């Protein structure tokens, strides 16, 4: 007599070994802040990852509806607190779009310099923390050592090291002090060889490759479906960068600048500065590629900064005048996405004729990039969860806002 299975899933459940639900976070060394991941594990194998967010929710958007655009700039600093300059820029450009403001050339080039330095600073944190996620402590220190030098430059420019509020609606708060550009060039000169060092301890390290290559691979379709942007999207082989492909109000900031969008298209990365070869074990869209894209972007950002310095020197005049605090916003709305280091950061502002926006909205790249983790971590090992999460490079301040 043949027994009929009433519910095949029941039988399957019976032969399973015990599963365990584990909370990874919100206090955990490698969730990059207060992220809580609930892992359903069978031994070391993770069958399901559920992200729980909201631990760093600070009502930023609601606050934005009660303060003037310039007063909200410090709140943008605290979204992606690792790349505050780029957050400032996104909001400033959005409000300028609503107001129809244009800023002087000198300010434009200074913004490029500052934002690309911010991108380098962010990618240094991403690379360093990624090494930490994989158990390698030393690259973390190397990266932070270099980041500190960028922060020194920022401190010279605006007095702050983390929450800058430097780029503001209408330009920048102030021009950089005399001699700043020389210091910046000196930094770039000494930083160039460090990149090779980081490639040696991370990108080309055999253990690093084994830990990341083929782990958390995401196809380009999947990345687009989930709304992934930034290095996460480019790591999947989509050549998409708002600095090149964005709307004119943003791309005109980079007008005349030469840089490559680093993504592996048709089997190879764009020919540029020498970089280590792609290991055979790496699959397009895996953690290794996401990491690698960031390392390559650092070089591109350095080139942009060098070009910016050159153009800045040739552009006399002011860097822009911040708008008045009581500047009335016109009726209407504006939405603009910029290429922040972690992905496309979108801000929306709706004006109702007063100085205070009627609605403020922030579209977070980290939020979309994080949403894919459940998909990427299905069936991986516990040790792969930090490896995948680190390669997504999220920051919870931006996810929760």
């Amino acid at each position, binding site marked *: 007599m043949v027994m009929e299975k009433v519910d095949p899933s029941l039988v399957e459940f019976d032969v399973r070994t015990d599963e365990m639900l584990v909370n990874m976070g919100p206090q955990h*060394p490698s969730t990059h802040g207060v992220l809580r991941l609930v892992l359903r594990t069978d031994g070391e194998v993770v069958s399901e990852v559920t992200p729980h967010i909201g631990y760093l929710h600070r009502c930023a958007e609601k606050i934005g509806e009660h303060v003037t655009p310039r007063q909200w700039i410090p709140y943008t600093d605290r979204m992606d607190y690792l790349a505050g300059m780029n957050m400032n820029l996104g909001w400033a450009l959005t409000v300028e779009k609503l107001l129809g403001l244009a800023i002087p050339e000198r300010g434009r080039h200074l913004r490029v310099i500052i934002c690309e330095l911010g991108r380098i600073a962010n990618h240094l944190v991403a690379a360093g923390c990624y090494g930490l996620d994989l*158990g390698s402590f030393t690259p973390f220190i190397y990266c932070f050592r270099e980041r500190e030098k960028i922060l020194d430059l920022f401190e010279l420019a605006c007095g702050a090291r983390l929450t800058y509020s430097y780029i503001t609606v209408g330009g920048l708060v102030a021009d950089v002090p005399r001699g700043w550009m020389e210091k910046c060039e000196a930094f770039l000169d000494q930083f160039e060889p460090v990149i090779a060092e980081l490639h040696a301890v991370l990108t080309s390290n055999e253990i690093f490759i084994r830990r990341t290559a083929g782990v958390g691979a995401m196809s380009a379709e999947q990345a687009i479906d989930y709304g992934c942007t930034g290095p996460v999207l480019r790591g999947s082989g989509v050549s998409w960068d708002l600095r090149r492909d964005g709307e004119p109000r943003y791309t005109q900031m980079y007008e005349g600048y030469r840089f490559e969008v680093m993504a592996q298209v048709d089997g190879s990365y764009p020919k540029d500065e020498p970089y280590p070869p792609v290991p055979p074990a790496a699959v397009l869209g895996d953690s290794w590629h996401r990491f690698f894209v960031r390392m390559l972007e650092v070089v591109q950002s350095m080139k942009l900064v060098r070009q910016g310095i050159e153009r800045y020197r040739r552009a006399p005049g002011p860097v822009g005048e911040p708008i008045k605090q009581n500047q009335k916003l016109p009726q209407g709305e504006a939405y603009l996405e910029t290429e922040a280091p972690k992905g496309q950061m979108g801000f929306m502002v709706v004006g109702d004729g007063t100085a205070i926006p009627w609605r403020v909205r922030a579209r977070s790249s980290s939020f979309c990039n994080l949403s894919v983790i459940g998909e990427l971590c299905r069936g991986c090992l516990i040790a792969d969860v930090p490896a995948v999460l680190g390669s997504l490079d999220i920051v919870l301040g931006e996810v929760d806002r």
Partner: protein
Amino acid sequence: MAAYLVHHLDLAPQWQWLAFLGVALFQCGILLGIVLTAAGGFTWLERKVSGRIQDRLGPTRAGGRFGWLQALADGVKLITKEDLVPAEADAMLFRLAPYISFCASFAVYLALPFADGWVSQRLNTAVFFILAVAGLEVFGVILGGYASGSKWSLFGAMREAAQVVSYEVPLGLSAVVPVLVAGSMDLVTIGQMQQGWFTSWLIFHDPFTFLTFFVYLTCAVASVNRAPFDLAEAESELVAGFLTEYSGFRWSLFFMAEYASMTAVAGLAAILFFGGWNGPLPITEWLGLNAARGPAAGWAGDLLGSLNFLFKAFVGVTVMMWLRWTLPRLRIDQVMTVCLKYCIPLSATMFVGVVVWTYLLPGGLLLHPRLGEVGERTMGPEGASLDSPGQRPGYRPTLLAASPNGAQPRDANVARAPFQGSGVPKDTVSQGLRPGLSSRAPSGLSAGESTGVARKVAGTLRVPSALTRSVRSTTVIDSPILSVSNRARSGLKTRVDKPPAASSANVAQTVSGPPKEWSP
């Protein structure tokens, strides 16, 4: 030493255990001091090394310029912290676990010689003992992880169990390779065999021992849970693994156990592969610092030797730190792959290779004088005992048997009293009351010449002489407990026998005589 006390204090048989207890406590105290100092020193060193590797200074405040009191400051901080036991924990096991780990890694030092004869308890199965006891450390970790009542701790314990149990196999296999070359599991004997120039170090003996060292290094790093194999406490994955719920003093016990184990495996590597207390050049011999020139010279030579040994262990530990601060962590499946797919086949191949090599080329690659001659000698036609069971041609230690003049052997080290370092006075020795030796050296071998040559020969010949007849000798269990109980049972003094005055010929003769493993 205990026998010395018993003899001189004239203790009644029922009180003799007091002497043994006292000596045991004294030796424990010394060892604990060494282990704790080493652990503290290496904590400081780890901070400094990691600091330098990471382009920072490391500790600079506690205790002055180099922060050399940092370990002490850390210790004080840890001890004054609250001793937390989580509500979910199995309190008794949770409290017990750190002691198991610490005791296991501490007990290793019982059999680890720091110089020729400077060993708490000379065991003829020291390698086996060390590997076995060091393997016990994992129980503390598993117990701690299980008893913590935390899922992360449980993960850490599971990983530790899988990893350490797997790595015991290649670790044992790779430790056996130098043992095979040396023909003894006695670390003192192994160390004595590598005296002279660095070419006589076992790592340079042949290509197999050379490669085996790297397998050993990998497995040693894995078995003491250091990066890149520190899965059990993988910070970025398991918070702190089995240590998650531990704090304060209990945490520091695990910590010290880790450093003690590191030092122990590095010390074992120093003896098995790098000549132990013998320097790269026979400087102590050039300086005449051996027992033949008197006890003070012998002691000075041993002191230099122990510094040599400590330096090698120190280098080994530093290499482990270097690895830790350079490499990312492996994943658990990769750790098992390294073990099962690479380390075990490699070490097994090395094992077979070294067997073949010692058969064909017993003198080793560089044919350092001693071993080379031995090989020729034993392979020669006069090696009449070749046919005897258990005999392998070219078995090196028979050198001493074949030595033309036992009174003046080539190596000054042989010409010294066997337990010079352990502080046994000559008269005691001459009466045959040598702790640790009495049970294995046949009493007939305890020749009492004033130079002590014959005794030394008898002591070192234990294994070879046995092996010329059979391999039984390697399995002799020289447990201190057994020796003590036997001594106690036989009343000790009854065992004092006057050995015949040994000439060199006499020695050679006794050596080739039947092995006596046990002479109660």
